[in-house]
């Protein structure tokens, strides 16, 4: 409580334009608490859909926070991040459904969700290390290519190993998470059941779990980057040779960043699998990796509140904004009296169809415009702001050096 008061006082005295991070955290906290009430209010009591959407957005926020550790802090470009997401989700599918009965193992496992979260996390971290160990000696572009390959391989393996994974059909009917009895409440959705354990079926329950997981993860990552390890990551990002000469075991540190990023992804994947109760190789393609990377870059690489804002906005644009666009366009055309646009006419399929076709072009334009208007990201780290100034302003060190050698 005392820290809250102190934080509020600092917020009051500090200019949020200079350091918006604290303000963003507070807004996220308050927003997370009041959102369900707003959702219920504006939808007249049927806010379940909106709340579920936000829980899904939370999955992407987790992913973006994890990728930010790899890309933003350690400076390793990972283009196959969705692979670990897939590994987490499939891990849950294997250990928490009847699926293993139809595999050569011919048995079933039903590990509770809460333990499965940790299993998914460690599984993904393990694969992160398996991939990282031989490849993290590579630098920059080479690493990006290798991770790109890994990101392609993993979903393909899940698709083609049908004996184990049911191939393109995916695995369905995964266990529904159960709340431990002490977490039980009106949100469990199974309120009439008297005996524990209560199954989580209400979107609100997923939302609450997601908010708790995100809070925990944000705190842990913040701890991490303000530690010996976080500083070593940034040193590796800035100058690997110098970092090594100063006693930083660069390969070990990069491996750690990679494994922690993968762990986040696996963690998010487990949650995602459990919420959807279905995994399929189609959910983890290259576009997912790129989407998460876009969230990180657009939000503000290397700044946790930034990537949270970025991931939330991009998620809402892709999964809410773009699908709704054709209908909006059609109703807009009607309301301004251009009804003709709604009818197909020769080559022209009607405005709704046309917008449907063009929606990713529109998404692309949004991205290009954002990056042009705000290349440092929506809420950049101080570092990125500096870095981009370097491009436009004269490098002060060079000026100084010339001045001093001339004198």
């Amino acid at each position, binding site marked *: 409580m005392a820290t809250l008061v102190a934080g509020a006082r600092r917020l009051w005295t500090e200019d949020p334009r200079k350091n918006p991070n604290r303000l963003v955290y507070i807004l996220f906290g308050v927003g997370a608490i009041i959102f369900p009430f707003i959702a219920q209010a504006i939808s007249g009591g049927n806010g379940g859909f909106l709340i579920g959407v936000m829980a899904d957005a939370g999955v992407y926020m987790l992913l973006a926070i994890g990728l930010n550790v790899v890309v933003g802090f350690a400076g390793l470009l990972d283009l196959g991040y969705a692979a670990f997401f897939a590994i987490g989700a499939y891990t849950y599918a294997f250990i928490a459904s009847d699926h293993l009965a139809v595999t050569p193992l011919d048995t079933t496992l039903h590990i509770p969700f809460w333990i499965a979260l940790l299993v998914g996390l460690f599984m993904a971290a393990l694969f992160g290390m398996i991939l990282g160990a031989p490849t993290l000696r590579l630098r920059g572009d080479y690493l990006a290519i290798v991770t790109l390959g890994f990101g392609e391989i993993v979903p393909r393996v899940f698709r083609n190993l049908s004996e184990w994974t049911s191939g393109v059909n995916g695995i369905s009917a995964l266990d529904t998470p159960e709340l431990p009895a002490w977490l039980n409440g009106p949100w469990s959705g199974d309120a009439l059941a008297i005996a524990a354990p209560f199954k989580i079926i209400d979107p609100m329950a997923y939302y609450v779990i997601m908010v708790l997981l995100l809070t925990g993860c944000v705190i842990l990552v913040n701890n991490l980057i303000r530690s010996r390890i976080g500083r070593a990551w940034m040193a590796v990002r*800035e100058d690997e*040779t110098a*970092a*090594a*000469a*100063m*006693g930083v075991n660069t390969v070990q540190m990069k491996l750690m960043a990679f494994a922690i990023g993968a762990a986040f992804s696996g963690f998010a994947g487990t949650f995602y699998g459990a919420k959807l109760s279905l995994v399929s190789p189609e959910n983890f393609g290259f576009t997912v990796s790129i989407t998460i990377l876009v969230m990180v870059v657009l939000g503000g690489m290397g700044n946790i509140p930034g990537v949270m804002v970025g991931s939330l906005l991009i998620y809402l644009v892709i999964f809410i904004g773009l699908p709704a666009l054709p209908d909006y366009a059609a109703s807009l055309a009607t309301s301004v009296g251009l009804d003709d646009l709604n009818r197909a006419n020769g080559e022209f399929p009607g405005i709704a169809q046309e917008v449907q076709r063009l929606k990713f072009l529109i998404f692309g334009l949004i991205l290009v415009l954002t990056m042009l208007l705000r290349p440092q990201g929506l809420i950049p780290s101080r570092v990125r702001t500096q870095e981009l100034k370097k491009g436009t302003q004269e490098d002060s060190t060079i000026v100084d050096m010339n001045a*001093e050698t001339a004198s």
Partner: protein
Amino acid sequence: MTATALEPKPPEPAVAAPILRIENVTKRFGGLVAVDDVSFDVQTGEVFALIGPNGAGKTTLFNGITGIFPPTEGRVVFEGRDVAGAKPHEVAKLGIARTFQNIRLFEYLTAADNVRVGQHCRMQAKLWDALFKTPGEGREEALVTEKAMEILRFVGIEQHANTYARNLAYGQQRRLEIARALATDPHLLLLDEPAAGFTPQEKVELMRLVEKIIDRGITVFLIEHDMKVVMGISRRIAVLDHGEKIAEGSPQEVRADRRVVEAYLGKDAS
């Protein structure tokens, strides 16, 4: 300099054994011989200088010692242990720190963070401690911060602790590189052209700083072009030319050496 928990080493007793022995070190890049069968000793507690014309192989030798480009042949014996072929971070942990000819700071970290990265290899905190901010980690961070400030004060840039390294003036960046190297608690400090681009005033200050470093019990081995600096602070000097050692001795001996004058000024001058 107050002793903190982060300083494991007791003051080095003045022993006759060399702290660093370069034995027949050769470095080839393909067909190019950058360092050719060079041998010399650096004694504990002295300032030893390596000089020579551009391209003589001085920095290559530094890279060989610090594990960045291990030597092709020969031994680098540091405190009785062969470190040729060891990885850079292992060499740093054993107690050899260095600066770079073209400054290589962590530009987008603050001066204090640069120095704290230098202390990385002396810190104990593990992933678990860092994730959960254990009390031990908190104490260690406090010590590390205190020591970082003390080192910044030692090199004279403590007022810039929270400035990004890239925003420091050139002379301050050179000092910060030395501070970062000192943070690794070295026994031997390699300085690669520490006075490059300095004004005469700054050179005097640098020489004073090197003396202070020696007083802390750290041996200094430096590459330098500026003869005033070299002659002013070093006890012994080795001269490289085209990868070969052509002279070694006290400043007076080296200055009088005919081959050294030839190497620097050409044959006609001698």
